[in-house]
């Protein structure tokens, strides 16, 4: 049973109606009627309000479910005023009867009610809910007692009742603090909870001691009542504790199941995928599919154990992602090897610097992507991507075993290599070079960003004429530098 988000007062009636299937209006009517029976309905409502968890806590699996007694936000301070409404207008005579008690309560129980106010941090919102709820409980308790004993209010009964209610409210509030993880000293909290419990016990005992002439049965009854009182006071906390425990157990079961699946996949599916790749040869579609599947599976397994996706803010991760993307579309197999400290990618969106003090400009990633695409398009097969980050800066090489190409043989109007790789790197303060691969076969594209160079991460995009001019000079530069 939960209290829905959409609620008139506390959501108790709605939750009860939903849980039992009884029409909501009937439940509300019964509650109001019960409130006339000596305030029983109102007390029951308050009790359920405190003990039943809110629906959004369950649904969203909030790690720290705010208890209904938790201190109110700005929004709920209005709601709390409304929340206390049923205690007052429910019956005019209760209201009238309650008023003198109310005044008395504030006078006599000021010692008790001072405690919650004292520990309320001034920086936080005023604990309106707690104070009002406390007063409402006291008023209702007073009214209940008063209506039962007639108009005159015997202090011998009212005072213990007030003490009991104040203690109960106090205790609940403390438990709410514990649950909401309020940063308070646990010893102080414990003392206050114990104080509240003692208050409840004393209040119950007072009933019997000040009541009729004591005998053995009164004492036994008093003891039982004290125990019952303590149980009532601690029940919300115990309930929450057990529901938390169940939630945690479920989460752990999920984790264990996930680990089992991961182990199984690692043992069987990954092996099979490796075998398929081995059998099918690196250029076939089957191998490409198997590789893509393997990568996806690995990603899933590892992001699962690492506890969530670290996005491609890490240069090595970004390269692997690009490699995966390209592999999906063309017959190519990237071997990405990264060496050295992890380096972040400085993007225009997040200009804050990496704590390690070295960031790769976004242009490097874009240029690397272009180089890898080029290798996939013109060479295919196995392509090595090597990233080294060290004292010399960032070095990135893309090596393929294809037919190779000479920069000066590319027509002037082809912008792929010149603009996307060479020009881009130059503008980002780095360097790019194209040269024949190992043993004279294939192509090797070198991208370097020197260390300690303050690189402008974003440059205004050049207009088309400026770009052409830019390109002309850059081409000369880069062709010189590649020699």
């Amino acid at each position, binding site marked *: 049973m939960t209290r829905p988000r959409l609620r008139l007062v506390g959501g108790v009636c709605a939750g009860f109606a939903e849980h039992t299937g009884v029409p909501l209006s009937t439940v509300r009517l019964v509650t109001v009627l019960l409130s006339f029976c000596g305030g029983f309905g109102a007390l029951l409502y308050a009790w359920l309000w405190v003990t039943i968890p809110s629906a959004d806590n369950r649904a969203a699996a909030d790690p720290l479910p705010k208890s209904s007694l938790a201190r109110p936000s700005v929004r709920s301070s209005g709601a709390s005023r409304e929340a206390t409404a049923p205690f007052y207008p429910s019956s005019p005579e209760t209201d009238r009867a309650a008023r003198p008690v109310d005044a008395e309560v504030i006078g006599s129980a000021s010692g008790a009610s001072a405690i919650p106010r004292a520990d309320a941090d001034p920086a936080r919102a005023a604990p309106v809910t707690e104070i009002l709820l406390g007063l409402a409980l006291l008023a209702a308790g007073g009214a209940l007692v008063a209506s039962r004993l007639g108009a005159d209010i015997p202090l011998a009964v009212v005072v213990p009742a007030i003490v009991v209610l104040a203690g109960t409210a106090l205790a609940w509030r403390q438990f709410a603090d514990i649950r909401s993880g309020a940063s308070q000293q646990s010893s102080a909290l414990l003392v206050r909870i114990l104080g509240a419990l003692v208050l409840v016990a004393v209040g119950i005992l007072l009933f019997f001691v000040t009541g009729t002439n004591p005998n053995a049965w009164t004492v036994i009854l008093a003891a039982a009542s004290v125990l019952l009182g303590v149980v009532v006071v601690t029940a919300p906390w115990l309930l929450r504790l057990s529901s938390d425990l169940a939630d945690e157990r479920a989460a752990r079961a999920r984790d264990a199941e996930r680990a089992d699946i991961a182990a199984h996949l690692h043992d069987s599916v990954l092996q099979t995928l490796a075998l398929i790749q*081995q059998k099918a040869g690196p250029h076939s579609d089957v191998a490409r599919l198997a590789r893509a599947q393997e990568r996806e599976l690995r990603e899933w397994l*590892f992001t699962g154990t690492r506890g969530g996706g670290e996005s491609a803010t890490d240069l090595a991760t970004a390269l692997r992602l690009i490699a995966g993307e390209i592999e999906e579309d063309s017959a190519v197999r990237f071997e990405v090897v990264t060496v*050295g400290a992890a380096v972040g990618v400085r993007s225009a969106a997040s200009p804050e610097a990496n704590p390690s003090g070295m960031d790769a400009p976004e242009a490097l990633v874009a240029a690397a992507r272009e180089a890898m695409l080029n290798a996939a398009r013109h060479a295919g097969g196995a392509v090595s991507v*090597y990233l080294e980050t060290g004292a010399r800066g960032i070095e990135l090489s893309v*090596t393929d075993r294809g037919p190779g190409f000479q920069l000066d043989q590319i027509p002037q109007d082809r912008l792929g290599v010149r603009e996307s790789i060479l020009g881009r790197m130059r503008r980002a303060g780095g360097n790019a070079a194209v040269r024949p691969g190992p043993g004279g076969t294939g192509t090797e594209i070198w991208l370097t960003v020197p260390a300690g160079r303050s690189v402008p991460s974003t440059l205004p995009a050049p207009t088309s004429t400026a770009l052409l001019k830019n390109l002309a000079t850059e081409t000369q530069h880069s062709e010189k530098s590649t020699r």
Partner: protein
Amino acid sequence: MTTTDPKHPGERARATPAPAEAVAQLSVLIVDDHSIFRSGLRAELDSDVNVLGEAATVDAAIRQVIELQPRVVLLDVHLPGGRGGGGAEVIREAAVHAPHTLFLALSVSDAADDVVSVIRAGARGYITKSSSGAEVSDAARRVADGDAVFSPRLAGFVLDAFGAVAGETAETTEELDRLSARETEVMRLIARGYSYKEVASTLFIAPKTVETHVSSVLRKLQLSSRHELTAWALERKLL
């Protein structure tokens, strides 16, 4: 099965000369717990590779290695049975009883701690399971010839673990905890996907010299007490 504690299994394996008959036909034992993979690999291997047998568990592998005395064991890193030590346990237990046998680690995972554990136990190389049959055959042949086989990823790991990128270089050849400048260069090229021959032509040295460098790196990897080796492996999940 006798439990022995070889002090430096890697050193022993390195010192072993190749017997004359093994050069002609390479005898191989496949150790993997997946029968599909075993049969697949067996069918894919080159014709001059003679597969003596297969084993699926640590205990069976140790027994078979001692019994069959293969020249090269293609050893999966993850194996059930034994005391849970996987491939590394097979090497530790069987190597003393099979003095001419060399181990080549095959792994699907690339996890650094797995790879380092088998290499440090005495494996002469490491390749991934997605390598083709020809690549595995070639690697096995090179291991049988006394070379070390490094995949680009293992080379990258070595560069990282020895702090070579940060500019640490060994002054003398006796130093175990750092790579020499030449070894660093060789490792860097291997990490970039160069074959030994390509490394040799790029650095203008003989292919045999490259092999010497790689073997010396392997020895350092096996014997070095650099704490980064283990720390790094634990810190990162992937090579």
